[in-house]
């Protein structure tokens, strides 16, 4: 059986704060004033089997949190 990888979720710098955005979606699911709150919110997606990519303010990678594979 092929296991489909779930869409990655990104934490991206925005002028107004930090956005949590699923790849492929037009809009961010939520924008937070600070990065810590965005990271905390993203954990819900991680538990659902999504990789979380935390970006630095220049778009490069700060941390890549692999999904809990049991959840996939």
């Amino acid at each position, binding site marked *: 059986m092929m296991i489909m990888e779930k869409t*990655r979720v*990104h934490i*991206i*710098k*925005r*002028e107004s704060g930090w956005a949590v*955005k699923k*790849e492929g979606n*037009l809009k961010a699911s939520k924008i937070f004033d600070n990065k810590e709150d965005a990271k905390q919110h993203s954990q819900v997606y991680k538990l659902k089997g999504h990789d979380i*990519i935390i*970006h630095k*303010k*220049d*778009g*490069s*990678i700060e941390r*890549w949190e692999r999904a809990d594979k049991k959840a996939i």
Partner: protein
Amino acid sequence: MEDQFSHNVFINCPFDDEYRELLCPLLFTVLYCGFTPRIALERFDSAEVRIEKIRQLIEESVFSIHDLSKVKSSKKNEYYRLNMPFEFGLDLGCKLYNPDKKYKNKKSLIIEKERYAYQKALSDISNSDVKCHKGEPEDLIIEVRNWFSELGFKNLDSGSSIWDDYNFFYTDFYDEMVKKGFKDKDIQKMPIPEFLDHIELWLSKKKKSSKK
């Protein structure tokens, strides 16, 4: 060759490590909008005279982006940088004095970190329209995208979606490089021509997948 001229964008900006966090999104945006960035870092040949290379890039590009942020030193004993205003002057000189009529169509975007900072160092252009990026990659992308729009190019994606796509591109690029054994330092210091190849490949894959 003439066709390339109308798509080339001469990039005149600092080449230090600090500016790289703006340079990479800038190059991505130029390619994303359908143009070709031309930059002195695009080829490395110790035997090539730098000013000759700059002259060639200017003469081969109808568009130019000049980031004049470094006309002001940021710390004690640091020299301010004159290369960017000098190369801006060469580009402007090409437009004003070159007898070839095609250069009259040259278009420039002048951009800086702090609004109006350049006026103190380069008052000759104080009536020019200068954009400001505040040192933020997203703002830089929006300003560059909007400049292409103001030049009359249609159907451009929004600056915010280009910024998000840059983040998605960087994720794929990072993943690929790590799988090939590259360390963070290798990725951060990757030569610009190699980095440009990765952007072009990613954009062509994106284009193909959006056609399906």
